[in-house]
């Protein structure tokens, strides 16, 4: 598919997604949901080898994106900066998007995809609670759950359409994307999950020290440790790119943007650490 075709398809999906998620009161109080265009592109690429028509692809991608919107919107419920009504509406908007994914697929009579996406919702929420509860034993176990939360919806979507060749690659890409937010939080002195768990697993003492109060040495050490994980992920991503068919230029461009952003942040972290 040519770049302009992807752009056209993504615009069509965004339009459909906006239409399906629209509610004037949500719009007024919490605004439009943020659409992750990378996920949209990933799902579009996954379906290229299937026999689905473009309109069919668009509606299936929209249903999976509604699931992702629901999960992301529910994360906003605990936003400390939100006023009560915004938090209340975040609960209902997330529920509404979930209902809308079910509704869309019910009318397409695709109960199997309803099940697959429900399984993704179940997995994400189980992992979210497990991550919150902090009962995993090793940092690698934590990392697996941390990544699974990001990939679960796309993974189930790809498995349903037997379009599995990109899953591992998407997994690394989404991890690196997530790490951008983690680094931004870390550098702002916020308590972000990845760095909190990294601190707990690698520092024998002083784990109660907030990230914002870490010593320069400890902060530098944490940056270096985190960079090791990021670097491993980048290596895996690059190896996969070599093994996969040529990626659409649009995705190649996004990969370069993400890598460049993460390099900038990790460099800044190590330098400032």
């Amino acid at each position, binding site marked *: 598919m040519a770049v302009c075709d992807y752009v056209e398809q993504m615009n069509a999906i965004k339009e459909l997604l906006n239409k399906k998620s629209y509610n004037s009161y949500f719009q007024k109080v919490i605004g439009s949901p943020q659409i992750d265009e990378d996920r949209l592109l990933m799902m579009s690429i996954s379906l290229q080898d299937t026999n689905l028509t473009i309109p069919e692809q668009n509606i299936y991608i929209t249903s999976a994106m509604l699931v992702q919107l629901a999960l992301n919107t*529910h994360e906003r419920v605990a936003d400390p900066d939100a006023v009560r009504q915004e938090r209340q509406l975040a609960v209902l908007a997330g529920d509404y998007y979930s209902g809308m994914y079910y509704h869309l697929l019910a009318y397409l009579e695709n109960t199997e995809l309803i*099940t697959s996406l429900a399984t993704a919702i179940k997995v994400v929420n*189980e992992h979210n609670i497990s991550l919150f509860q902090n009962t995993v034993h090793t940092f690698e176990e934590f990392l697996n759950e941390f990544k699974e939360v990001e990939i679960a919806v796309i993974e189930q979507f790809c498995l349903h359409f037997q379009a599995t060749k990109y899953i591992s690659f998407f997994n690394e890409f989404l991890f690196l994307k997530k790490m951008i937010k983690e680094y931004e939080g870390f550098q702002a002195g916020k308590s972000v999950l990845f760095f909190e768990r990294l601190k707990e697993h690698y520092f024998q003492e002083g784990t109660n020290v907030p990230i914002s109060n870490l010593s320069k040495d400890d902060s530098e050490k944490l940056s270096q440790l985190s960079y090791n994980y990021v670097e491993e992920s980048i290596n895996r991503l690059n190896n996969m790119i070599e093994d996969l068919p040529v990626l659409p230029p649009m995705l190649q461009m996004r990969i370069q943007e993400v890598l460049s952003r993460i390099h900038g942040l990790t460099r800044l972290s190590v330098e400032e650490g």
Partner: protein
Amino acid sequence: MKLSLLNSNLKGDFDLIEQELEIAIHSKTKMLNDATVQLLKAGGKRIRPVFVLLSAKFGTYDIHTVKNVAVALELIHMASLVHDDVIDDAKLRRGITTINYQWNDKIAMYAGDYILARSLEYMTKIKQPIAHQILSNAIIEVCIGEVEQIKDKYRFDQTLRDYLRRIKRKTALLIAVSCELGAVAAEVDVQMQRQLYKFGYFIGMSYQITDDILDFTGSEKDLGKPAGEDLRQGNITLPALYAMKNPKLKTLISTINEDTSKKQMDSIIAQIKSSGAIEQSHAISSRYLKKALSILDEFPANRARKTLREIANFIGKRKY
């Protein structure tokens, strides 16, 4: 609702539903398991599964098929309660600490979403597309109803129509589709599916109006919250709407806000109770109940019909 109300021949099936609910909410994640089991143990009337099973009795009843609908409907109801508690910042539900209060809002959101996902996993064992179209429409309508409820809070100029539309979405719809989906799963003929839907709708309306009356007339012990709490939180229900037909009472009720003291609330509730609003509300509830019972007259005379009639009468008389 007491199981003793129900035919003894359904007792085994209700036990099976209860066991299946336990299986459905089980998770290997301890905190999630603790939260959902706590919710399940808190009980509840299980009226949705009751209606699913009884409606299915009018068709080809296979408990191994119908149980999936019954479990799914109860789980959807449970998930909505968990999320409602976050919205209302509730501390207690059925006298037991809410998930949001015991843990936090985030855990409650995750738990609610997990339960909803499990519900859809069960529901998709039903292969008729119409079943999913019915349920998904209902879920969206329920959601819109919740949004309307937030929009209508402390809106003292709302009409009877606003109220009835709101309780339809809030309560009656899920009871109506419980009846309808039980019938769909048991392949009851389409005409009767519609009648069962209507029966559930009328019962649901009556049930919610009774609930709204009890908010004024019930004791704190029975309600698990202070009397008049709905009104203090800005939910304008039928007794308040009738009371506001009196201009003096309307002026008084319109002063209510979150900070209204218990003493002020007690005085307002006493005036609402003596205004005739409770009796007028009971009359509306009875009217819905009567409509439900008249639909039952059209159904074949069997044990399921008899039990549905008993349940309808129980709902009309319930005190908590």
